[in-house]
């Protein structure tokens, strides 16, 4: 009788630990997915950090002969009162070559609005070959009422881009964020 009680207690503790552990596991899935996606580029998200030009150019052959098309898309999420469009819908670029383009944004509203641009690449796994040196998506952008701005994007596509990709599409969606929030919070997340 005593043995079963001790056993029971042991089982109860183990099972409760399992339950609590699985609750923690659910939360752990969030960073786990981020790591997984960063490594594989699966969800089409590009890194939120700028690639440092100097270190890259030291080691790499610049500009191979291979060319791909990159398309640019600009979307505005519901409730975001900005006009937003790419300067050009597509570019033909050489791998390894540094390119610059920009996106135009204008705040239509009667008050200052802060926006966060969220990138998405299609096909998803191409995202990890798209290296952004300078991007307006790294931080929040604030525009006063009626203000407009050309926001630059400097990037290169790594020459290790898989053979089968000839076109890739980079889309930004602008979301409205509360103006008071610190801008560093988002840029560290990928």
């Amino acid at each position, binding site marked *: 009788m005593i043995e079963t009680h001790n056993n029971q207690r042991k089982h109860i503790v183990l099972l409760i630990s399992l339950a609590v552990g699985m609750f923690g596991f659910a939360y752990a899935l969030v960073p786990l997915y981020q790591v997984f996606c960063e490594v594989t580029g699966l969800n089409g998200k590009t890194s939120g950090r700028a690639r440092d030009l100097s270190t890259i150019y030291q080691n790499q052959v610049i500009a191979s002969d291979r060319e791909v098309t990159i398309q640019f898309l600009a979307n505005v999420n519901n409730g975001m009162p900005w006009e937003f469009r790419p300067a050009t819908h597509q570019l033909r670029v050489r791998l390894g070559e540094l390119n610059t383009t920009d996106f135009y944004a204008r705040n*239509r509203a009667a008050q200052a609005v802060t926006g966060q641009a969220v990138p998405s690449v299609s096909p998803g796994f191409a995202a990890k070959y798209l290296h952004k040196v300078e991007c307006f998506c790294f931080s929040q952008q604030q525009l006063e009422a009626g203000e407009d701005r050309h926001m630059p994007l400097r990037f290169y596509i790594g020459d290790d881009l898989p053979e089968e990709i*000839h076109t890739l*599409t980079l889309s930004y969606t602008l979301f409205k964020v509360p103006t008071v929030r610190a801008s560093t919070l988002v840029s560290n997340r990928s």
Partner: protein
Amino acid sequence: MISMSNGFRNCLTLAFLASFSTLTFAVEFDLREGVTDMSRRIQDLHHLSLAVCVVVGIIVFGAMFYSIVAHRRSRHPKPADFHESLLVEIVWTTVPILILIGMAIPATTTLLEIEDNSDPDLTILITASQWKWHYQYLEADIGFYSNLTTPTAQINNLEPKGENYLLEVDNPLVLPTNKKVRFLTTSNDVIHSWWVPDFAVKQDAIPGFINEAWARLDQPGLFRGQCAELCGKDHAYMPVVVEVRLEAEFDKWIDDQRLAKELSSGQAVADRNKTWTMAELMPIGEQVFLTHCATCHESTGVGQGVTYPALAGGEIPNGPLEVHIDRVMNGRGGTEMQSWAPQLSDRELAAVITYERNAWGNSTADVVQPKTIYATR
């Protein structure tokens, strides 16, 4: 049910059967073949898996029914006493695995082709929102909204329903035959899903992300689909209509669209330069309101609870004009009130705001001019 006269029981049976009398049996049983190579291969896959299931079902249920008859107690009074056999377990584990491999191979090759989105001939950006689609032709730089056009009178059973009830739109997506069309999907608010059964293309539209799919259409025609992910109130009311044209006709259509785009900007200039009266704006505003706003705010402006506020006597239509204009043009983030500035022209926006401020007992007497809207953009 317990004790019932024969007559009553007969009546019930008749009533039950009679309830089927309105059926015309114009029904489809099979998955459609569709108009692409991929849709045909998917139909083949469907037939394959269905055939496997039917054959396995016949064997298993056949054995069961046989046993139910032959091994019932009255016919088989002494039960056998076997209760295990390793050989038999191995056989009926291995054979299903082989059958599954037989199904997995065509499924795999078909999927690898479906997921190969490379080298398209044209790309369409499909942006979903509550509750309509926006189509943008990336190369041709034209874009437009596609809204349901079935009248609410039909939905509310006040008029007989048309043949394409709930599957008709104002501006269908127009595509050429025999070109690889790449579809990029995204959403402005919640998750939607773009689906055309005849193309066997179904792709979720996710806010903040783009997805891609492709199709090569063999033949011209009109093809209809629907949103395939619950997206709120009017999920049932955002159909997809695609008009597929022969290549030459498609090219001509693109040119026509470009021309129309230039003309409408000319029209917009004319609208801006004119000063409109209340009498001119109110009917336009009412039309815009009924088409786009009434589904949530009701045609009488009374709204639906806290989710869709009342406009009749409401704070915003009777309050400061700038606030009202801002709300209609830019929406309210985090709610289903979307920004209408991208979708409606200056004239339509001016008209609907004027209408809201002067209908259903609201009497601000405000008249909003298209040029005011233009200046606010």
